[in-house]
């Protein structure tokens, strides 16, 4: 293939440290429920934006839609605002785990302690009401392994 030829003649001479790199992490933000509460997810999205993330907002979305966005947008982290039953979120989470295993997921919203435990067991970090934005941004940094400035 053409590419291999290029490789052979050394056409990929640059390393990624060149000044033309601008690594930016991308986070998907979705609501799993059909309830309209927007305060929480928008406040979190803005905090992430202000911390330098590109946040792809898809609003209320089904598991299928969340998965599609997660793949096509090649996000580094999926954020779920869960406003309803945990099982609805679990469908999205299972789908993601199946197709894009390595993408970390974190969640917030109205989540009972029991549901939070269930999510934790699946490796999903939970930020319930009252969580600080600093903690949430720190979690994003850690989960996306973003280089600390």
């Amino acid at each position, binding site marked *: 293939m053409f590419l291999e030829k290029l490789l052979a003649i050394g056409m990929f001479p640059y390393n990624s440290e060149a000044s033309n790199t601008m690594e930016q992490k991308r986070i998907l933000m979705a609501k799993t429920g*059909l309830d309209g509460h*927007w305060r929480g997810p928008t406040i979190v999205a803005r905090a992430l934006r202000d911390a330098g993330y590109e946040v792809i907002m898809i609003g209320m979305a*089904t598991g299928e839609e969340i998965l599609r966005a997660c793949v096509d947008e090649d996000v580094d982290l999926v954020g779920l605002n869960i406003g*309803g039953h945990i099982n*609805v979120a679990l469908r999205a989470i299972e789908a993601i785990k199946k197709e894009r295993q390595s993408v970390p997921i974190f969640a917030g919203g109205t989540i009972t*302690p029991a549901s939070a435990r269930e999510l934790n067991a699946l490796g999903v970090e939970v930020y319930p*009401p*009252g969580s600080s934005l600093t903690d949430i941004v720190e979690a994003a940094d850690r989960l996306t392994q973003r280089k600390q400035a």
Partner: protein
Amino acid sequence: MKKERKYDDMTSAAGIKLKPFYTQTDIPQKHRNFVDSAPGQAPYHRGSHETGYRTKPWRIFQLSGYGKPEDENERIKFLLKNGETGFIMEHDRNTADHCYNVDHPEVLARREDVGLTGAVMQSVRDTAICLDGLPIGTSFGHAGGAVVQHAPFALAAYWTVANRLGYDLRKIAGTGQSDFNLTYLGCITKQQIPTKAGLRLNADIIEFCGKEMPRWVPVSIAGYNGADSGLTPDQELGSLFANAVEYLDEIKKRNSIPLELAAKGCGGVSFRASIRIFEEAAKMRAARLMWGELLSKRYDITEPKIANLRIHCVTAGSKMTYQQPLNNIVRGTLMALSAVLGGVQSLGVSGYDEALSIPSEHAHQMSVRIQQILQEETQLTAVTDPLGGSFYVETLTAELVEKSWEFYEEIQEQGGYLACLDSGWLHTKAAENQHREFMALEQGDQKLVGVTSAMEDISPFEVEGFMGTDDAFDVALNRLNTVKKERHESSATRCLKELEKVCLSENVNIMPAMMDAVAAEVTLGEIGDVFREAFGDWDVPIQL
């Protein structure tokens, strides 16, 4: 370095600078003349009647419901047995707010959510189950229908059931909500009819009640929904009256019922009672004063029975914390106190598990108990407007009135309340406040006990939240299929066609056709389809 809490820099939620103490001269001159008035008289800030709670204690009125209609029925009966003095029906968000049946793809994709925060009622049969054995004739009933496009169906179903049970519609008392703040500002649904169509539906309801149901509060503007979405107390007031004016102007234009009737109808509102006690009490007082002023200045209505605002209050859900939930019992009590000091007619106290789930039975019972303690033990009910004459509270009242009118004027400059919803102007205000409030917590300028300070918790009680039932969806799907099979299909079709026609015509009231459709067992989703076809979609002005 430790941040110093500046002694001279304390402002109220409305941004009013608070002095360390107040004297008589702080009360603005104009307001000083009002201080000596009696409750029940203009300018009304002192309360709606002289004997106040002695003759009419506030109504204990709790939002309740989940699951199947029979689950909701059971919870309402539980509350009534425990001392609630009115009842509120709550509908499932997925179906009701979107006017979808459970077989709609968006609902199917989230079937476990169905019934989580309200009962599923897709046809009048479901409403009948929910209302079974409830004191429709003797209690003030709330039919639900908080979201604008859902209200006509919710109301028609309630009335149809009441009618079938033999109640005279002219005699039953109650309300729906059909609130713009909730629908277009607070909780934006996936799909909603545009504000203009919403205004028409609400005006239709007001008109219909004006003619047929004199004791019913047709729509109930909920300042609560604006406030808990971020609006400050002055903004809560200013936007509420700007909203009322949209309704009243529309009714005036239609000229089909006496404006007084509509004014009376719109004068049953709800506010949020939040945690800053004196400001919140002052807000209720300011609200009454402003309503009287608005009606007399803009519509020349001065009859005290109409110009006297009636207030339902709900304690601020957003002040209830997930952490150390028992603290919320204290918060609920204090917020309830602020409402009672402000002289409200009706009150709901948020459950201590508010941030975890809808209320458990016990949390609900506690909300009722708090109110009972306030009514029975504290002698709060003895004297009307106990804060009247307080230099501080009178000054706050006057300043809130002024600030709120300023916000009202700002809204008018933006083209009115509806225009502010369509453009996102009001959302931006709310979002700015939310952000500021949150940053104050984040940076430690505002403390939240159990959340940002005093974190140790040795409570022996596990609060786990309430998960409801898990058969709401299945039962609803079965019932939907059954009603479609059993109903008189040709009359259902005919009624639906008629409703469609009425929706498309601009000056026919939709309520009679809605009543017919509901009686013919047309389902919620079918009505939603007609609305969507006739009215189209609202453009959400903000990025969610």
